[in-house]
């Protein structure tokens, strides 16, 4: 269950799911992003597969993808996405310490991340939080660890996450009750 009362737009329930969205609702509550997009079904019909394609399983390993998604969401200060992907990150194997660091909490100056992760996160910080050109030094350090198709995908992933960050934040999409409970259990509320 999700408290939908604070959202800035109506989040369609299953009994109000438009015809083009019925498959999306067939498995139960599709979550606030889909429930908001459902109000414009013809756009949801193209947006949801796009989001699923970029954020879902692909040539990149899931841990790397969650590093990008969670870090981008932190940089963009998206409460909904940080909450949701904190849980996902833990579920795909990131340690609690790694998640804390990604969320900008804790740390004693050391880092749990290796050089590849550090270069990736520096790239993500610039893509998500920077303005104008991304400095060559950041790219060069990043490109040491990734080939072109990975660079393209990681950059698309950060960019798409940023799109979702602004969408969820602007519309005040609510964190689900299940996610909030899990965050409390993990001490990450």
């Amino acid at each position: 269950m999700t408290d939908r009362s604070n959202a800035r737009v109506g989040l369609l329930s299953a009994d109000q799911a438009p015809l083009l969205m019925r498959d999306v609702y067939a498995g139960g509550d599709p979550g606030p992003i889909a429930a908001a997009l459902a109000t414009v079904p013809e756009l949801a019909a193209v947006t949801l597969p796009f989001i699923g394609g970029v954020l879902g399983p692909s040539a990149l390993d899931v841990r790397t993808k969650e590093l990008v998604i969670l870090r981008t969401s932190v940089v963009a200060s998206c409460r909904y996405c940080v909450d949701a992907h904190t849980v996902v990150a833990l579920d795909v194997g990131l340690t609690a310490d790694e998640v804390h660091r990604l969320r900008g909490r804790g740390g004693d100056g050391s880092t749990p991340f290796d050089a590849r992760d550090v270069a990736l996160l520096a790239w993500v910080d610039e893509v998500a939080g920077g303005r104008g050109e991304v400095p060559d030094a950041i790219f060069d350090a990043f490109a040491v660890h990734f080939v072109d198709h990975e660079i393209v995908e990681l950059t698309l992933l950060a960019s798409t996450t940023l799109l979702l960050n602004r969408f969820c934040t602007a519309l005040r999409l609510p964190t689900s009750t299940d996610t909030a409970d899990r965050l409390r259990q993990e001490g990450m509320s």
Partner: protein
Amino acid sequence: MTTLQTADAGTTTGPIGEAVAAGRLPGRVWVYSNYHCNLACTYCLTESSPDVDRRSVSGAQMRRIAVEAAELGFTALGVTGGEPILAPDIVGTVADMADVLPTVVLSNATLFTDVQIRRLAPWAERDVSLQVSLDSPDPDVNDAARGEDNFAKVVDAIPRLVDAGIHVRIATTSTSMDPADSERLCALHRSLGVSDDDHIVRPVIRRGRGVEVDGGVDAGQRDLPAELTVTADGAFWSPFGPTVRDGILDTDLLITRTTSPLRTPAEALLGLVNGRPAGEDAVLNIR
């Protein structure tokens, strides 16, 4: 009235025209001209009344829909509401639509003075039908659902409309009617100049205010013909789709918010129809 470029209806060979010609897709496109109404009927699907938002589709938009519908291969148009007669320039708009495709207009027929009926002359000259609601041969039964003096106004208006050359149909919405009442109603509409072929009877649909009516029938996608319906809020599966409950528009039969170009919702509708399992076409055939 403006002169419209008239599409060559019936010769379209695109997928929508082919589906219409094959009977897989109904040929009529409906437009909700507006949602407000001078009445507030007990079973109204759209909770219409004088006080609701008008949510109008403009005359220019309705004319565009007519042309695009014909180009896509649809074969007929319908205008409903609310009370379409309250929409600005509805006479000219419908006349222009009827220059493109045959058009039926749904009305409660309570606003027709002699002067207003004379203004409908362009409809008499074109393929326009006026579908008027009359629910019972008994004034008290009819008026309990449709409002005080409704029966008297309707039975007064219909012969004047017929005399003016307007093709009038009568739609009866009822939860049940015994054979004797049905026969009296048919005798009444014949006496008003409306033939049996122009009288349809349909159930109360449990949507909008109709959810409160005992004896109404549930109607979802499977029960309703896939008649593309354009409103100010988007395009729907059926004219029974854009219903309102407690002031909130139902979206369960919404197809797309995009209505221009009409091809967008029309192709989405055809995709839904083509994706429907065999035997899942409309079972109630409510019109």
